[in-house]
């Protein structure tokens, strides 16, 4: 450290001419917003409507708001912790500092799997969208989706490889267009601008809760789809200029945006499409917002929502590559995974090896696995991650009370959000068990096996002393 001078242009410790090569701090709150909302917004364009199939339109709305409550707790807790643990790896790094190595290893794996699977699911979706456009424009034969699926993954991996600023600026633009498209569709079909085409009363009559309250419970599984991935904002922690300000600001603005987008999406789609059609995401409304635009009779809206769907899909895959690679990189840096993953590109300042390593994995799942299984694997990994968060914040507040570490954001009403989050996670686990019990048990079995492997083998390679570099005081009680 003696040959480092942070005021020097060449020996600032963070460049190829200095002693350290680190990630670049170039992002602002808007990029954090784009990362979080970008990953999620595809869930508004497709996927959430399976909740309608599980329990009817009202069940989907109840699931939308309860899942919204769950994710508001996630966003508040994340904002507080990550404004203090301003480091790549997000929840993995939080777990490492606050709970311990085994939890950190598991959380790190949840993150890598959740984002890589979601990236694969998005690439499959993009391939499908290209085939729809091809058939709409008169292409007679069946389009080979594979080159488009591969191109999406390769292009976004290349973008991520070249630098984080361009990657997330790209996300900012396409996410803003996709969000704007939902607002315009709402204004155009609700009667605020021009004639309205919605008829909630007629569509809902006699179908208020077709499967009763158990249908509402089952809908919670897909209610997550409205917001799944907002917690990904924390992965930008080591690349934002001002972590204490940008992370809470971007994350909380993100969850507010999503609450608006989710409610408007439900309102528009359930007011235009019959619930039986809307709830069938395979043979019915694959992309419900796009279907609503088609029923509006406006060519402009059809194009806008068509691009919105594609942009939301690309933004999600892009954010997922960013987040999965940061989690993998952070685990490599601490030797939880091989140290090879902990490399940073000296010119582009990106975790280039982690980015490249995850490309073939995403390709294998995108080309070889069924979409619903890929999505379920992603949801379950995410859900396991949310279950860790209440434990994390309770221990964080206990070990480092408010007066010991200055936070960029202090979330209110502690421990009510933590208890609410834990309760909602329990309900959602039960909802997932109703539909995908085998996968849930298989997945938990998988994490138990890898935990044993970590405990008995991998832990000996971990950088035990060097992994804690935050200038924090000693935890209370130690």
């Amino acid at each position, binding site marked *: 450290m003696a040959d480092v001078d942070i005021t020097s242009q060449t020996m600032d410790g963070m460049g190829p001419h200095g002693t350290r*090569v*680190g990630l670049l701090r170039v992002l602002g709150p808007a990029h954090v917003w784009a990362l979080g909302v970008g990953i999620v917004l595809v869930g508004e364009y497709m996927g959430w409507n399976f909740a309608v199939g599980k329990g009817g339109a009202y069940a989907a709305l109840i699931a939308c708001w309860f899942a919204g409550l769950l994710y508001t707790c996630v966003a508040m807790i994340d904002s507080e912790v990550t404004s203090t643990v301003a*480091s790549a790896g997000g929840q993995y790094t939080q777990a490492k500092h606050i709970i311990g190595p085994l939890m950190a290893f598991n959380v790190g794996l949840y993150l890598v799997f959740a984002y890589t699977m979601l990236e694969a699911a998005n690439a499959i979706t993009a391939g499908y969208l290209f085939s729809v456009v091809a058939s709409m424009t008169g292409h*007679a034969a069946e389009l080979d989706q594979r080159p488009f699926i591969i191109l999406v993954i390769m292009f976004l991996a290349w973008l991520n490889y070249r630098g984080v600023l361009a990657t997330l600026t790209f996300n900012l633009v396409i996410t803003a267009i996709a969000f704007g498209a939902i607002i315009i569709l709402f204004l155009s079909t609700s009667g605020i601008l021009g004639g309205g085409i919605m008829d909630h009363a007629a569509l809902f009559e006699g179908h208020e809760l077709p499967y009763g309250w158990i249908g509402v419970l089952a809908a919670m599984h897909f209610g997550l789809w409205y917001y799944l991935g907002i917690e990904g904002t924390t992965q930008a922690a080591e690349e934002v200029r001002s972590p204490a300000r940008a992370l809470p600001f971007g994350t909380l603005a993100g969850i507010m945006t999503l609450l608006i987008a989710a409610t408007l999406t439900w309102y528009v789609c359930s007011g235009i499409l019959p619930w039986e059609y809307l709830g069938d995401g395979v043979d019915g409304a694959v992309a419900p917002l796009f279907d609503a635009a088609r029923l509006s009779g406006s060519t402009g809206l059809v194009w806008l929502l068509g691009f919105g769907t594609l942009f939301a899909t690309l933004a999600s895959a892009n954010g997922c590559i960013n987040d999965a690679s940061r989690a993998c990189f952070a685990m490599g*840096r601490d030797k939880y995974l091989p140290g090879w993953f902990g490399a*940073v590109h*000296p010119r582009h300042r990106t975790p280039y090896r982690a980015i490249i390593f995850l*490309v073939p994995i995403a390709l294998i799942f995108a080309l070889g696995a069924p979409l619903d299984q890929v999505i379920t694997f992603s949801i379950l990994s995410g859900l396991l991650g949310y279950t860790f968060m209440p434990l994390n914040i309770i221990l964080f507040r206990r070990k480092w009370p408010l007066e010991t570490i200055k936070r960029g954001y202090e979330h209110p009403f502690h421990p009510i959000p933590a208890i609410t989050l834990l309760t909602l996670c329990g309900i959602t686990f039960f909802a997932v068990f109703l539909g995908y019990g085998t996968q849930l048990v298989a997945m938990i079995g998988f994490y138990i096996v890898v935990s044993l492997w970590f405990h008995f083998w991998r832990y000996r390679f971990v950088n035990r002393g060097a992994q804690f570099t935050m*200038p924090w005081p000693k935890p209370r009680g130690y």
Partner: protein
Amino acid sequence: MDLWNWLEYGAWGLSALLALYMLVDWLRTDSTYPEDVLTSSREGEIEALAEQHKAREAHHG
């Protein structure tokens, strides 16, 4: 052969080019820089340096 057939070929070709770019750059980077420089990033580096910098300033002051 309609437009979409050409686009399929284009997507294959562009994917191969992007993959090749990353592969070549990866190998070139790994052979140009020593491994300990590439893996020299440390968590909380800037914060730790800033703390040290402040401590040094205070010491000089």
